[in-house]
């Protein structure tokens, strides 16, 4: 309420002022204006009566039942619920571009302090300086998405997306500082480094000072010293943010994201993009126990998906495949579908054809050509029943069928995907089954 009010506030103004209480000006007005006072009193009466409404409070036994059920169910939940039924297409396209953009920004930031200069330059956000309960200085590049949570002795930064440059002053005994993404945690003891995430997945770490060990899920550990960096190969970064499944062109569960330039599993494309001096990267390559790695993967909620490894553009199929990927990344799903179609046709019988057929379906879905996407998925499932992408394709097909109101068929597809080895696919299938049940309950698809 403004000072010196002479006219009556509207009922809406009174309503807005009510939660915080009347200020001095309004109190004086209410004392002098019976109409407004009556309105104010009516709101007080409604609020007072509303507070007399029964409150649901659980008994101890019920509370324990719910808590137990919650934690048991939570263990089977993975990943975020889809905001729309068409999540596979969004995931396969939009997020890929975001991830690629971040990776591109990283890679074009130059070596050494390029990214760091950008981080502390114009537009950067300086989150905190190591004062009081914090030991870290966090510089965020524009559009970075992060939250400062926790203070010493357990200082935590939750990074969802973008690049942070972090400087940590030496910690006292018992103090910790960590940067957490959905799939990793970086813990330091006094160092300066960049950490980059895209779509909640760790993309890169660059160390300016100190020493960092990088241990990505299911991959070899890499030790980095000052001036060194680790980054997930660009194609993997893109794929990590696309469709959450694990697959290779051959279907083998090959290790991925080894040290750039030093790994047999890294694609030529990746090596060409990153190409650090192999001498500066010390590969630790300690094999982690399989059970621990599996647990990591399950807890991640989404295995790292691997796009096809195209080692060279040596033929028309490969060229068409590359063209499809470029088009998909450039936001041209129709062009991508056409190119993948050519790749599939040219590479009939070859492993490339399997991937091309799959990505053609994805591209068609992204293009909004659901009927054609459904056809492409049906062909893929028929032609490649042993493909590691069968579960994923089934789930995608299920969502399309659900959109079309084919509840029984959709349920069958989701059930086929429910046993997939990739947790995220299983989770998606489960959500699909729930959506089918919900559609049946509602009586409309």
């Amino acid at each position: 309420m403004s000072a010196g009010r002479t006219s009556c506030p509207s009922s809406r103004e009174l309503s807005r002022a009510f939660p915080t209480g009347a200020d001095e000006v309004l109190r004086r007005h209410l004392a002098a204006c019976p109409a407004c006072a009556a309105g104010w009193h009516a709101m007080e009466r409604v609020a007072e009566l509303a507070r007399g409404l029964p409150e649901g409070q659980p008994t101890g036994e019920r509370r324990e039942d719910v808590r137990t059920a919650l934690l048991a169910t939570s263990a089977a939940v993975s990943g975020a619920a889809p905001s729309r039924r068409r999540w596979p297409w969004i995931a396969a396209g939009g997020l890929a571009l975001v991830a690629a953009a971040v990776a591109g920004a990283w890679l074009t930031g130059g070596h050494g302090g390029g990214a760091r200069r950008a981080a502390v330059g114009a537009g950067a956000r300086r989150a905190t300086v190591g004062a009081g309960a914090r030991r870290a200085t966090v510089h965020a590049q524009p559009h970075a998405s992060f939250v400062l949570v926790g203070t010493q002795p357990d200082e935590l930064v939750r990074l969802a997306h973008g690049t942070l440059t972090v400087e940590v002053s030496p910690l006292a005994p018992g103090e910790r500082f960590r940067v957490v993404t959905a799939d990793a945690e970086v813990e330091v003891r006094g160092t300066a480094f960049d950490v980059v995430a895209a779509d909640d997945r760790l993309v890169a770490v660059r160390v300016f000072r100190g020493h960092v060990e990088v241990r990505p899920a299911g991959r070899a550990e890499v030790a980095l010293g000052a001036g060194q960096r680790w980054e997930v190969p660009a194609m993997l970064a893109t794929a990590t943010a696309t469709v959450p499944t694990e697959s290779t062109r051959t279907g083998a569960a090959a290790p991925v994201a080894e040290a750039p330039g030093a790994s047999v599993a890294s694609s030529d494309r990746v090596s060409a993009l990153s190409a650090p001096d192999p001498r500066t990267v010390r590969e630790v390559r300690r094999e982690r126990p399989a059970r621990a790695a599996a647990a990591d993967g399950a807890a991640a909620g989404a295995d790292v998906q691997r796009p096809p490894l195209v080692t060279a553009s040596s033929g028309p199929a490969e060229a068409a495949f590359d063209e499809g990927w470029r088009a998909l990344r450039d936001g041209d799903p129709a062009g991508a579908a056409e190119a993948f179609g050519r790749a599939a046709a040219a590479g009939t019988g070859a492993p490339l054809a399997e991937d091309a057929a799959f990505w053609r379906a994805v591209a068609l879905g992204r293009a909004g050509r659901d009927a054609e996407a459904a056809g492409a998925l049906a062909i893929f499932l028929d032609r490649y029943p042993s493909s590691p992408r069968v579960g994923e394709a089934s789930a995608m097909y299920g969502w399309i069928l659900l959109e079309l109101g084919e509840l029984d068929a959709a349920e069958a597809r989701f059930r086929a995907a429910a046993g997939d080895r990739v947790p995220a696919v299983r989770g998606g299938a489960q959500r699909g089954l729930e959506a089918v049940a919900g559609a049946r309950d509602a009586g409309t698809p």
Partner: protein
Amino acid sequence: MTGKLLLLRSVEGVREEMSDEALLAACGAGDAAALGALFDRHHASVYRFLSRLAGTDSASLDDLVQTTFLEVRRGARRFGGRAAVRSWIFGVAANVVRHQVRGEIRRKSILQACASLPALAGTTPHQALERRELVERLGAALRTLSHDLRAAFVLCELEEVPGIEAARVLGVREGTLWRRLHEARRALRAAIDGEPE
């Protein structure tokens, strides 16, 4: 001067001493114990919020509470720190109600709503009866409000979530929130006064 990148390790620390934000972050990284700690910390207020928002029986309420915390776990990574965690959880609960309350729950709520009113503190039997009738009338009117109006009223009036936070967790502009709150109050006032809106 060493650092380690460790995958998916539970966020360590004394959970009772961790902030809501830290627990939520740990939750987003798959820490089930953090989810349990969040539940322990907020389940009572979530029960209360949902009971007023959905006005349902205890069994359905249990389901709604469980679903809410599952969605909290699923959505933890999306928490942007723009509202208190408690408010954010209310927003999640409001969405759960919006999407999951079905006719069955509504039917049960009508049958049971009047049977569970608390003891009233009227000074005379007549006043107590009158007040009870008003509360019943208000409760019935609250259930007839649209979800949006009801969520605004329960969040701001009963849970005392600041308007700007309520707007954020409901995903609307602050002005929209105030408008809904105003409309809800007006409708409830009309109901207890026995007047048409």
